[in-house]
């Protein structure tokens, strides 16, 4: 066996690079907090806004984000304790409790709680914000649709090899056109390593 160049390592790096580039092109939308505004309520000096994502809302992982602001100045208030409670309207299923925190939020203005909605249907949501000066409760309802099949959100991840196969087929055809005599194409990568 003859190792003549640093080609194998390069080839490996290239393979990795191409794989990552292809995967990177299909970067899905960032799973960030924010999303659809569900409720905005003012109580005393506080204004509380609640967002949910993804949009449209579906059973599965759901982000409930809360922005607490000073109602007068609009400045965000950091020292707050925010509890989120999701109660299914249907008889089955227990309520879900979660604490919304800044560490779980991408946007540091918000406090986020990542919860797993076990099933589709209507959910009553209660958000309690306890700041030094006041407590505000926000209530609203939201409907979660049935979750989409997982493959619908990740289809680019398992279909991109098809693109590679098509490119490979085009490549073979092009090479064969250039060298019509050499019908049995030999790949130099194998020889050079």
């Amino acid at each position, binding site marked *: 066996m003859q*190792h003549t160049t640093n*080609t194998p*390592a390069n*080839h*490996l790096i290239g393979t990795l690079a191409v794989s*990552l580039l292809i995967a990177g092109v299909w970067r899905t939308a960032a799973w960030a907090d924010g999303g659809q505004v569900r409720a905005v309520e003012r109580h005393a000096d506080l204004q509380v806004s609640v967002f949910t994502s993804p949009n449209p809302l579906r059973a599965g992982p759901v982000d409930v984000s809360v922005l607490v602001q000073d109602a007068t100045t609009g400045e965000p208030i950091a020292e707050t304790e925010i509890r989120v409670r999701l109660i299914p309207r249907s008889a089955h299923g227990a309520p879900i409790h979660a604490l919304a925190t800044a560490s779980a939020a991408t946007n540091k203005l918000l406090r986020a709680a990542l919860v797993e909605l076990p099933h589709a249907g209507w959910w009553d949501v209660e958000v309690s914000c306890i700041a030094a000066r006041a407590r505000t409760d926000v209530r609203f309802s939201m409907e979660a649709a049935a979750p989409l099949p997982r*493959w619908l959100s990740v289809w680019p991840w398992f279909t991109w090899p098809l693109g590679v196969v098509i490119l490979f087929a085009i*490549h073979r055809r092009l090479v064969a056109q250039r060298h019509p005599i050499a019908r049995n194409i030999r790949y130099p990568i194998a020889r050079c390593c």
Partner: protein
Amino acid sequence: MSPTFDAFLRSWPFAPWLAATLTITAATYLRGWRGLHRRNPERWHIGRPIAFLGGLAALFLALASPIEPFAALLLQVHMLQHLLLMMVAPPLIWIGWPLVPLVRGLPEPIRTYWVAPLIRWRPLRQAFAFLTHPLTAWPLYVGATWFWHTPRFYDLGLSRDGWHLVEHMSFVASALMFWYPVVRPYPSRPRWSRWLLFPYLLLADVQNTLLAAWLCFSPFVLYPYYVQVPRLAGVSALADQATAGVLMWVPGSIAFLMPLFWIGVSYLFDTQRDGARRKVKQQPRPRVVPLPRLPIIDPPQHAPGAPAFDLLRFPVVGRFLRWRFARQFMQSLMIILAAIVILDGLTGPQLSPMNLAGVLPWIHWRGLLILGLLVTGNVFCMACPFTLPRTLARRWLPGGRPWPRALRSKWLAAGLVAIFLWSYEAFALWDSPWVTAWIAIGYFVAAFVVDSFFSGAAFCKYVCPIGQFNFVQSLVSPLEVSVRQPAVCATCRTKECIRGNGAIPGCGLQLFQPRKHGNLDCTFCLDCIHTCPHENVGILATVPARSLWSDPFRSGIGRLSRRPDLAALVLVLVFGAFANAAGMIAPVVAWQDRLRERLGNPPQLLVTTVCYFLAIIVLPLAAAGIAAALSRAWGALGDSWQTVVMRFSWALIPLGFGMWLAHYSFHFFTSFDTIVPAAQRFAADHGWNLLGEPMWLLACCRPPADWITNLQVLMLDVGLLFSLYTGLRIGESNTNSGGQALKVFAPWGCLMIVLFALGVWIVFQPMEMRGTLPAAG
């Protein structure tokens, strides 16, 4: 600092794929640019990479900086994001003249043999020329701008994540096309007059001004989404919209008018240069060595005989591996771990997540083993603890007997692999620390007994199921123990690599280095490296799966196409990968339960045994037999179906490896910290309280992150592509024409796609979090 601004500075989204993509793109560009800069420093000056990297940085800022999360709350920030995507990043990228550096930065074989024909493809070039022609690019750019700024579609982009992504992609794509004719990056050769750029840019500025003015002077909020969101820092929705309009108007106009100014100046400059050219024409023309117009089709630049990457020459690691006792050192560490596993398995609590025997072998060792095979090679066999006692005691052991001729094949090993896979599921080995400890003891005893009586590494070559797994999977590893310079071996008369040198034995697996191909049967024991007096054996880089593409005579093995036992081993391991993973997903478990009910509740062991027998014995035989029969029929092959199976079954290895990798790395990545409480518990039980109280929370199951599933699918993707390519190469090596090769390969390709689809389905199913505590715990 205001709290809003402070929060803004700390709001960085996590975008690893974008970061990886941009980093690799930048590295590829810089690699290509460096070579071009050496050739022609004036043309490829430092400004090019600065501009290109600036463009990538603008993309990163737009999509993975605080701008991204705040764009949903403030229209002006969203406008800034769009400006970066449409007016900053694309022109900077083109100013970097990225086409040639990016192609040159690719590894030479990919560039020369794969990319170059595609780049030369006329329809692709024509499509690119059409899309970047001013009369096409302008309407596309303006159309994308106006389309997405109409209230209905702007709100659609804000309210639907998928549409937001489409919006950004269309912005970037149309802007790249728009700015291409303006910058005209090398080696573009436009056929239209540069004067066309004056109306091109002026009209673009006019439409931008109209849109910006609409935003600035509108008496009502155009985008209802921004009416709903809470206002920040007292900025009203209307004021926010006006500010966004100003941003679009002023910096946008500058972006369009600055190139106009630059083009005007360059026209003046070009006129002077033309005069200079005329003067130069009268002088005798110096002989110019033409540079290739498309450097991508350069012949390979490397000198023949240049060394491949050699792990033994790598700093620190190479020095360690060259140390005579490196292997024994690694084995000693592993034997300590094995002793701990045995001790804890026999004496510790019989709950898998709490016991090191339930955690270390089944989560960490398996995960690291497969990852080691992926990034290096057969590192587990190199550090195998089971063979250390017999190595140390070899001088006092009888040994010397040859391994029975009847057993000199892989049939026994293939059977043991099948039994191991079956017993893992049938007796839930992973769930019993006690049984795990006894398996480890059994391994030590078996290795010691077999190698006490028989010469060489009989246990490794003919018995060890783990070894067989490693041998087969390491065929797709990137490193291989191999000869550095074949010419040196041709002059060698002493052959220490196979005979030994007195102090160190030769290869116990009868692999003669000059005739060794691939990693099959190689334990990475490094004896050949230490014995070679010419220092001509290294751990060299190789193309993964390359050794499967041809079927030469292999030392200690023979030809793959004449070894039914090896083909059987490969099929058991490939189908075992899918059966092993499928055995722990909810739909398969439920299906087994239903089947058991229908059959009148026979013992679970019987159902599992029948299922496994079908999955790893009958199904592989049937699938490979049908594929071979179709290969023979379609490709008019004269070989027997057994020969076809023996040849093509090897092409399934990369896909099988992908499945093992996806499965084992899943458990490793989701449960790697289970070792912490188990180690704390073990230490506390033995009177060492240094590690503190066990943090049992870490032993609890966690839902797998999305990136793990994506990574699993990526592993299967790459495995499929390698398998398809390997199958095609095998087909070509057995036929006389490309068409016939395709026909011969087609049934195997279909089998690979079916297995791939099965693998993708498996990774999307809820998988048992074996080795972890239940959530309630």
